[in-house]
C-alpha cells in the first residue's frame, strides 16, 4: 500500500476541508478527482507532509509524512501553482533542488531530469521567460530529479494546451512504467481517463467513491440524464416525446422541453425523427448532466 488514510480530518477554522476520509491507494497511477474546493489539494499537502492533519492518521510508504525528511526524499511533488526562485534558469532551479534533496551528483541528476522532460534546449534560459507548458515540465523535472518512489502531481494538466497535455500525460505514464507510483489530481474526468483506470472521488471533503473509471462511467450512464430541448412548439414536441419508452420524466414551458432519460444515446438518435413528425423546430439541445458534477450530485444524493 502506497498511501493509507484513516479517518482523516482537516479543518481551517470553521471550514472543513477533509471530513473523515479513509482510503487505501495501491502502487501505480491513481487519479484523485473532485471539483474545485473538494479537498484534493489539502489531501495532497497532508500526504507529502507540508500540512498536518487536524485528526486521524496518514501513512505514506508506511511512515507518517509530518516532519519526516527521510520520507520526503522518497516523494516528488509538483504543485499546482508556479513558485520559482527569481532569476534562476531551469537547470539551476532543478540542480538546486536536487542538491537540497541530498542527490549525490546533483548536476548530472538535474541534466538527466531536464532531458527526460525534454527541456534540455531551454534549460539555460531564465524560468521567467518560459511558457506555461515549459514551466510545468520544469516543475515535473524537479519532482523527479531525486528518483522518488511516489510522484504527487497537483492538477498538472490545468491550463495546458492539448499538445502540452499529451506530452505531460506521456511523461507521467513513462514514470509509472519505470516502476514509480503516481497520484495525480484533476477536476476533469476525461483527463484522468487517459492516465489510469483507478480513481478516487472527493467532494466537499468527503470520500465519495473509489474504483475503476469504467464503473464511474457506468454510474453516469445509469442514472437518468436531463436533456433540455429548446423548440418553437414545445407542447407538441413534449406530447410526441412522452410516448417514447426512453423518456421517464418530461416537463415543458413556452420555450423548451426537459426530458429525463436513462438512455441518452438512444434518445439522441431518435430525437430528430420525433421532432420532424411533431412538426417542431429544434433550436438547441443541451444536457447539464454529462459531467463529474452531475455524478457527484447523484452520488451524494443517494
Amino acid at each position, binding site marked *: 500500500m502506497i498511501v493509507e488514510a484513516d479517518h482523516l480530518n482537516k479543518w481551517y477554522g470553521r471550514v472543513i476541508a477533509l471530513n473523515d476520509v479513509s482510503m487505501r491507494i495501491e502502487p501505480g497511477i491513481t487519479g484523485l478527482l473532485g471539483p474545485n474546493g473538494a479537498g484534493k489539494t489539502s489531501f495532497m499537502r497532508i500526504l507529502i*507532509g507540508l500540512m498536518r492533519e487536524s485528526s486521524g492518521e496518514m501513512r505514506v510508504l508506511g511512515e507518517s509524512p509530518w516532519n519526516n525528511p527521510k520520507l520526503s526524499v522518497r516523494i516528488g511533488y509538483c504543485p499546482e501553482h508556479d513558485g520559482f526562485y527569481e532569476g534562476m534558469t531551469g537547470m539551476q532551479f532543478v540542480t538546486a533542488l536536487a542538491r537540497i534533496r541530498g542527490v549525490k551528483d546533483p548536476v548530472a541528476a538535474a541534466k538527466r531530469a531536464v532531458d527526460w522532460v525534454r527541456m534540455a534546449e531551454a534549460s539555460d534560459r531564465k524560468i521567467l521567460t518560459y511558457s506555461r507548458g515549459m514551466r510545468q515540465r520544469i516543475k515535473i523535472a524537479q519532482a523527479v530529479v531525486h528518483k522518488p518512489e511516489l510522484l504527487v502531481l497537483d492538477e498538472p494538466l490545468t491550463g495546458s494546451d492539448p499538445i502540452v497535455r499529451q506530452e505531460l500525460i506521456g511523461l507521467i505514464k513513462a514514470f509509472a512504467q519505470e516502476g514509480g507510483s503516481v497520484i495525480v489530481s484533476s477536476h476533469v474526468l476525461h483527463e484522468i481517463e487517459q492516465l489510469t483506470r483507478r480513481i478516487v472521488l472527493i467532494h466537499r471533503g468527503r470520500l465519495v467513491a473509489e474504483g475503476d473509471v469504467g464503473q464511474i462511467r457506468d454510474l453516469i450512464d445509469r442514472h437518468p440524464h436531463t436533456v433540455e430541448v429548446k423548440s418553437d412548439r414545445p407542447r407538441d414536441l413534449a406530447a410526441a416525446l412522452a410516448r417514447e419508452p426512453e423518456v421517464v420524466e418530461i416537463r415543458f414551458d413556452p420555450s423548451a422541453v426537459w426530458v429525463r432519460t436513462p438512455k441518452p444515446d438512444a434518445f439522441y438518435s431518435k430525437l430528430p425523427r420525433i421532432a420532424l413528425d411533431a412538426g417542431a423546430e429544434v433550436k438547441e439541445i443541451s444536457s447539464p448532466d454529462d459531467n463529474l458534477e452531475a455524478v457527484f450530485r447523484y452520488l451524494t444524493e443517494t
Partner: protein
Amino acid sequence: MIQAALGFAGLTLRGLIGGRRATAAAVLVLAPPFFALIASMFGKHVDPVKLFHGFMFYFSLWFVIYLLSLIYGISMSIGEIEDGTAGYLYLSAVPKWLIVLIQMGVTTAALSAMLFVNLLLTGLAASYGRELVPNLLRDVVSCTLVGGVGIAVSLGYYVTCGLTFRTPTGALAAALFPTFFWEILVTSWPMKFAEYTLTNNLRGMLLPMVFNNSRGPLYRYVVNFHLPDYGEASMFLSILMGLFLITAMIAAMNRSIEGKEAR
C-alpha cells in the same frame, strides 16, 4: 545530509543577493557613509572620531541591524511561503529545524559582513580630508561582532514571527511593534526599562571596546545612564539569542503550509 545542508546554504546566499531586497539592503548599508561624507565635507569643526562613533551608535547599532534583519528575516520565512517556494524547501533531506538554523546562520554571517562594510565606509567617510580615525579597524571589528549578535537576536525573532503568523501583515506587525515601539521609544525615555532593550545591551557590550569604558554625551538617551555592563549584557543577549533560535526552530517544526498562502 551535509551536501543537502550545503545546498541550503547556497540557496540562502543566492536569495540574499537577488532582487529588490538587495537594493534596499544596499541603500541601508551605504546611507550612513554617504551622510557621514556629507557631514565631513561640509561640516564645521567636525571631529572624525565623534562623527564615526555617532553614526555607529545612532545608525548602525540602532537601525541598520534591525532593518536589515527585518528585510531578510521576513522574506526568509513568510516570503518563501508567499512565493510558493517553501514547499520545495520542506520536502528535502534536511529537517525543518535545521533548515531554519542554516538559513539564519548564513544570513547572520552575510548581514554581519554588510555591517562591516557599512562601518568601514562610515569610518573612512568620517575621516575624509582629515586624519584617519584612530583604531578604526578595531572599532569596526568590535562593532561588527557586537552588531552580529544583535543581528542574530533580531533575525531569530523576525523569523519566529514570520513562521508563526499566517499573514505577512500579522508577521510584520508582530515584528515591528516590539522593535520600534520598545527598542526605539523605550531607549529614548529616561526609565529603568531601557536597560532591558536589545539596543542598550549591545551598546553596553560595545562600550568597553571602543570607549575604554567611559560614558560620554553619546548616551544622552539613557538619561539615568544605566547601561548594563559587559557581563550583564552578554548574558542577556545570549539568553535572548538562544530563546529566539529555539522559538524559530519550534515554529518551523510546527508550521503548516495551508490555505491560500500555499501554492
